[in-house]
C-alpha cells in the first residue's frame, strides 16, 4: 500500500470488513448454512444454501442437480416401450403413476384406447401408488418433526400396498406394467379380495395417523401457521396436487380435466381443500387424499369389467407424427409429458413436467423470514422426491 493517511487506511479497513460481511455496528453476523446434499429431510440429494441472520432465514436457495440423469435427452434415443422403464425412476415412490401420463400421451398420438378392463386396473394401480407414496410421506414427515412412531407405522402399513402392487405387476417399486394400448398382464387370481383387505388396513392406518399425528399438540405447534402459501402465489409458481389444494384452490386433474384412458368418472369421491395454506393444511389434505384413494380403489375393484387388458397394437410401436400433452394428478402433483413425435420408433422430444420441480421452486419464497427449525417443517410439507426434481 502506498503512503496514505490514517483516515484512508481506516476507510479501507472498514470497506474490507464490509466485504467480509463483518458488521461493525455490533449486529449479528450473517451465516451461510448448507443443508444437504445428504440430509434425511431431502428425500435424495437436494442441497439448500440458507443464509441466516441468527435463527431467521434470510434466503434459502435450493441447488438441485446432484441426481440429474438427463431423461429428456435419453428419451430421444429410446423407443417408447424402453422409455417406460426410464420414467419409472422419476418419482420412485409412486412409479406406476409416472408411466401413465406418458403412455396416455403415446396412445393419444396413436389413436389407441385401452380396453375398459385395462383402464380400470390402470386407475386402481395409479391410486395404489398414490397410497404407497403418500403414506410414506405421512410417516416420514412425522419422523422429521420428531415423532418416530408415525414412521414405523407408515412403513408397516405401506407394505400391504406394496405387496399388492408386487402381486399384480411383479415389481414393488418399478412395476413397468403400463403399455401402449393396455397393460402387460391381467390381475392374478384372488388379487381383488386381497386388495380389498389391504385397503381396509390402509383406512385404519389413516384413522390411526389422524389421532396419532394430526391430533398431536407438538405436531400442530410445529406446523400450524408455518410456511403459509397464499393461493395466488401457489398458482403463479405452478404448485400442484395437495400443495395447491391446501392453499384453497379447488382443482384436481382427476376430476376436472381427466385425460381419456382412466376410469375416474366411474367412481364417487371427494376433492379436499384446506383454507390455511400452511404445513398443517398440506399434511391434512394428503391424509384425506390417502383415504379417498383407498375408497376409489375399493369402488373400482367392485366394478372391474371383464374382457381383454390389451388393445390391438402393432408389435413394433411407431407413433405417428404430432404433438400431445397429457397431464395427470400424480401423488406429488400434476405430472405431464409433452411428446413430440416425427413418426419414428423414438420420440423427437419429450418435455417432462414433474410436480416436485414446481413445488420446490417456491421454497425461496416461503422460507424467507422463517426460522431454522421451521425450514425442515416447510421442506417436509412441500413433499418432493428428488428424482422428480432432477429427472
Amino acid at each position: 500500500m502506498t503512503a496514505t493517511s490514517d483516515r484512508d487506511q481506516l476507510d479501507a479497513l472498514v470497506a474490507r470488513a464490509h466485504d467480509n460481511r463483518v458488521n461493525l455496528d455490533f449486529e449479528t453476523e450473517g451465516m451461510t448454512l448448507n443443508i444437504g446434499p445428504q440430509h434425511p429431510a431431502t428425500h435424495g440429494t437436494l442441497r439448500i444454501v440458507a443464509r441466516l441472520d441468527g435463527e431467521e432465514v434470510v434466503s434459502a436457495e435450493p441447488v438441485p442437480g446432484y441426481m440429474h440423469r438427463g431423461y429428456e435427452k435419453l428419451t430421444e434415443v429410446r423407443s417408447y416401450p424402453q422409455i417406460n422403464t426410464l420414467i419409472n425412476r422419476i418419482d420412485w415412490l409412486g412409479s406406476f403413476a409416472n408411466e401413465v401420463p406418458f403412455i396416455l400421451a403415446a396412445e393419444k398420438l396413436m389413436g389407441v384406447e385401452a380396453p375398459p378392463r385395462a383402464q380400470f386396473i390402470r386407475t386402481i394401480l395409479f391410486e395404489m401408488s398414490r397410497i404407497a407414496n403418500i403414506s410414506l410421506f405421512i410417516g416420514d414427515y412425522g419422523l422429521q418433526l420428531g415423532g418416530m412412531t408415525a414412521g414405523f407405522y407408515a412403513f408397516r402399513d405401506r407394505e400391504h400396498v406394496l405387496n399388492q402392487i408386487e402381486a399384480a405387476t411383479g415389481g414393488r417399486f418399478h412395476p413397468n406394467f403400463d403399455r401402449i394400448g393396455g397393460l402387460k398382464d391381467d390381475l392374478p387370481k384372488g388379487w381383488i379380495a386381497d386388495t380389498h383387505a389391504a385397503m381396509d388396513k390402509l383406512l385404519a392406518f389413516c384413522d390411526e395417523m389422524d389421532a396419532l399425528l394430526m391430533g398431536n399438540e407438538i405436531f400442530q405447534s410445529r406446523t400450524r401457521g408455518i410456511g403459509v402459501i397464499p393461493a395466488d402465489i401457489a398458482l403463479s409458481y405452478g404448485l400442484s396436487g395437495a400443495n395447491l389444494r391446501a392453499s384453497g384452490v379447488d382443482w384436481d386433474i382427476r376430476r376436472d380435466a381427466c385425460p381419456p384412458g382412466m376410469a375416474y368418472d366411474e367412481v364417487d369421491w371427494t376433492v379436499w381443500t384446506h383454507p390455511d395454506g400452511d404445513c398443517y393444511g398440506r399434511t391434512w389434505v394428503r391424509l384425506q387424499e390417502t383415504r379417498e384413494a383407498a375408497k376409489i380403489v375399493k369402488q373400482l375393484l367392485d366394478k372391474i369389467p371383464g374382457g381383454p387388458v390389451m388393445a390391438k397394437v402393432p408389435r413394433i410401436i411407431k407413433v405417428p407424427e404430432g404433438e400431445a400433452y397429457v397431464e395427470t394428478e400424480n401423488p406429488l402433483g400434476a405430472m405431464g409429458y409433452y411428446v413430440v413425435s416425427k413418426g419414428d420408433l423414438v420420440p423427437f422430444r419429450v418435455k417432462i413436467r414433474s410436480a416436485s420441480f414446481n413445488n420446490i421452486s417456491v421454497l425461496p419464497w416461503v422460507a424467507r423470514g422463517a426460522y431454522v427449525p421451521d425450514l425442515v417443517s416447510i421442506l417436509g410439507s412441500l413433499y418432493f422426491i428428488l428424482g422428480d426434481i432432477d429427472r
Partner: protein
Amino acid sequence: MSPLSSADTTTDAPAEDDVEVEVEVDERRQAILDELTSRLGDGVVDSHIRPGDDLWVRVERPRWRDTGAELKAMGFAFFDFLSAIDWMPSPYGRDMDAQEDRVVAGEAPPDPAPVEQGYAGGDTRFQVIAHVIDVERSLGVHLKVDLLDDELSVDTWSDLYLGANWHEREAMEMFGITFLGHPNPVKLYLPHDFQGFPLRKDFPLLARRVRPWPGIVDVEPMPGSDSDDGEDE
C-alpha cells in the same frame, strides 16, 4: 404366483362416451383463441386447435411478454411449464442405431432431414414453448414463440409467473437461450463450468459414442398380438 384369471370380475361393458362433448369443448377453446387474438392483435402468428383436446398459439417474439401478461389477465393463473424445442433433426440419426459410429467408421453421414415444426408451425430452429392453465375453466393453452437463429433470446416471464424462474434457468442451460431480464441467470442442474447445451440436437449423447447401441436384438412380443402375423412393418 397363481395363473392369470378374470373369474372374479363382472363382464359389464361401460357405456360409450358421448361424442357431442367434443364440439362443445372445441367452442370453448375457440373462444379463448378469439379473446387472445383480440387482445394481442397481429401478435398472434398462427394457431391450432385439436377439438376436445388442446390449443396451440404461436406469437411474435417481441410480444412474448405481452402474451404472458394478457394470459394472466384472462385468468390463466396456473403456470404449468416452460421449455424449448430444437427442431433441427439430429445429425446423429434419430433411429435406434447409432449412426454416429458409421460416420466415425468412414461412411458418409446421412442426408440431413428437412426441419419441420409441429403444431402452429414455425420458421426457425428453436422454439420456446409454455403451457398455462385456467383452473376455473380447466383449460390450458400451449404458447410457442420462434427464436431468431442468430440471437437466441426472448423476454423473461419470471416476474409474471414466478414459477417460470426455474424453468427458464433450465431452458437456458439446456438450449443456450437467453431470457432477457431474468433475475438469476445461472445454471440450475449443470455444473457452473459445463460446456455446451445438452438438449440441442447437435450435442452428442456421449454414452452412445462410447458404447454403440446393440440394436434391436430381442423384440418382446406384445400381449394380445399374434406371434408373427406381419403386424410389424
